[in-house]
């Protein structure tokens, strides 16, 4: 069995599973946030009307809660949703509630690794499609809707059809100026936004071994954009060290068997990957950065679970140091732990000296919620994950998805810019 099959077999109490088997898997960790949480509460209300008992959760110690989409609260309704979340966690005795402005807080997927909330080998589900992100820690991590999450909260398990696994092998180290974001955009361009649908996307090879944990998280994060059920990378020493530094203990490593089966193998040479953007209006609509270098921009957005981790900020700061931005530029670190590190290391100073705005950890404009949404016809280069029509604001705005290096270089010139071409 491969790693995903082994995790699902263990979680469903079977000695083995194969693709297409339907299993009920015990869930080790479950996450809700200020969008899916109120959605779950709504499901609970409906269940109560049907006489189904919702007075106790299966295990509240497995649950954690983030506040990220509409925080700092954008307007009255989002403020009410945050109040509802607090009432919910109090009622059910959920201790891991990461309240914004109260200790550790940030985007849910970033907290999952920054706070070491999920361990290798676990089954982790969340009420958010980018839950896939956390698979880079060697866990089975999968996004679900409100009804499914409500079911998990009350029953501790959920059904899955065991996916087939596509294996993406990266040979060699990515060149300078090329980031994990470029690699995952390249993959999505190759296989399409339904190219991984219902399947697992597993990453391995010497290029993945070379990568930092944060870079790996960028890969699994965007497996969602290829429609995958989960993205996964086997934990190694780097993963274990990363999690131990963040307080995790008793870490197991599950590896695929030697004779594990994969439905398809995709092989890439790292030296051949170039800086890439995805043009509006789809993450699969990719092109090399140099092919669109005449596009004039209105804005650069460096934020989100995809593109505002510490090393993303470090990459942007390298470009912006001593330079001035030519377009409106927003930098929103993905968690307060990252924000503080960026402050201590002088990165925030670099951004502000360059003229950029530094904002709080929030999903913000990535999902068109608030804090920098786009006007009609505005064109943005963004380190986020989606560029569907209206994703970041007006239906006629445009988003180019790019790495933090490309976004920062473009902020400096005001046009889409390959970091290799920046003087």
């Amino acid at each position, binding site marked *: 069995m491969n790693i995903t099959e082994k995790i699902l077999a263990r979680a469903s109490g079977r000695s083995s599973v194969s693709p297409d088997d*339907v299993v*009920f898997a015990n869930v080790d960790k479950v996450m809700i946030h*200020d*969008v*899916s949480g*109120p*959605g779950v*509460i*709504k*499901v609970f209300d409906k*269940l109560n009307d*049907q006489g*189904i008992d919702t007075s106790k959760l299966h295990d509240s110690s497995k649950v954690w809660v983030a506040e990220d*989409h*509409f925080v700092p609260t*954008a307007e009255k*309704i*989002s403020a009410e*949703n945050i109040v509802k979340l607090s009432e919910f966690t109090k009622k059910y005795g959920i201790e891991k509630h990461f309240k914004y402005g109260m200790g550790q807080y940030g985007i849910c997927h970033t907290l999952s690794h920054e706070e070491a909330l999920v361990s290798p080998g676990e089954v982790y589900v969340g*009420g*958010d*499609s980018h*839950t896939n992100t956390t698979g880079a820690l060697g866990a089975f991590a999968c*996004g*679900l*809707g*409100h*009804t*499914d999450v409500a*079911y998990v909260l009350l029953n501790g*398990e959920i*059904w899955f*059809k065991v996916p087939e696994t596509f294996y993406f092998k990266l040979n060699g180290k990515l060149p300078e100026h090329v980031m994990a974001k470029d690699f995952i955009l390249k993959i999505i361009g190759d296989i399409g*936004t*339904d190219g991984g*649908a*219902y399947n697992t996307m597993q990453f391995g090879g010497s290029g993945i071994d070379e990568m930092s944990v944060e870079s790996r998280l960028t890969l699994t994060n965007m497996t969602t954009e290829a*429609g995958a*059920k989960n993205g996964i990378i086997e934990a190694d020493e780097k993963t274990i060290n990363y999690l131990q530094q963040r307080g995790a203990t008793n870490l197991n490593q599950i590896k695929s068997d030697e004779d594990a089966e994969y439905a398809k193998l995709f092989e890439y040479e790292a030296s051949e990957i170039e800086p890439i953007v995805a043009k509006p209006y*789809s993450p699969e609509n990719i092109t090399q950065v140099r092919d669109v270098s005449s596009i004039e921009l209105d804005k650069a957005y460096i934020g989100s679970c995809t593109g505002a981790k510490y090393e993303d900020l470090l990459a942007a700061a390298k470009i912006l140091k001593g330079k001035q931005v030519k377009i409106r530029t927003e930098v929103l670190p993905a968690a307060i732990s990252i924000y503080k590190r960026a402050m201590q290391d002088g990165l925030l100073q670099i951004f502000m000296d360059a003229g950029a705005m530094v904002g709080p950890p929030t999903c913000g404009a990535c*999902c*068109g*919620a608030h804090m920098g*949404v786009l006007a009609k016809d505005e064109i943005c280069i963004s380190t986020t994950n*989606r560029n*569907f*029509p*209206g*994703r970041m604001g007006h*239906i006629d705005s445009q988003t180019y998805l790019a790495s933090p290096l490309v976004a920062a270089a473009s902020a400096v010139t005001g046009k889409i810019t390959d970091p290799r071409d920046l003087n």
Partner: protein
Amino acid sequence: MKGNVIKYERDNIDTDVIIPGTYLKIHDYNELAKHAMEGLDPEFHSKVHEGDFLLAGKNFGCGSSREHAPIALSTCGIKAVLAVSFARIFYRNSVDGAFLLPIEIDEKTYQTISNNDELEIDIEKNEIKNISKNETYAIKPFSEIIAKIISAGGLFKYKK
């Protein structure tokens, strides 16, 4: 199940189009319904009738996990979405929450059915009758677990 078709000749109709991100803070079903398909067709809410079917190409519902998407469509009156293929979370949400039926059809059927056609869908026989065109098409049968959850009326009623 009988109704008329609202057809969008598009692949990859994503959840940002079905219900834009700014409405994710809303959990009132009737309010969400007012914004269904707003990203593609701001008139959708006023043209849809109870019992209608939505027809589209491949990868319908790709994007986010927002259950707001099937909720907005079903509260408008949409009983089934017919598509060449579905993104996984939209598909699960539609079935597990018992909001609407996600029905997979082949490319030819998708091309053949026109906007406003009146259809009768029979999921027992895996068949669509096109009353307007006097034609019959096959639908891709649901997998065993999906059929069971649909027939129970959602995941909570199905239980294991």
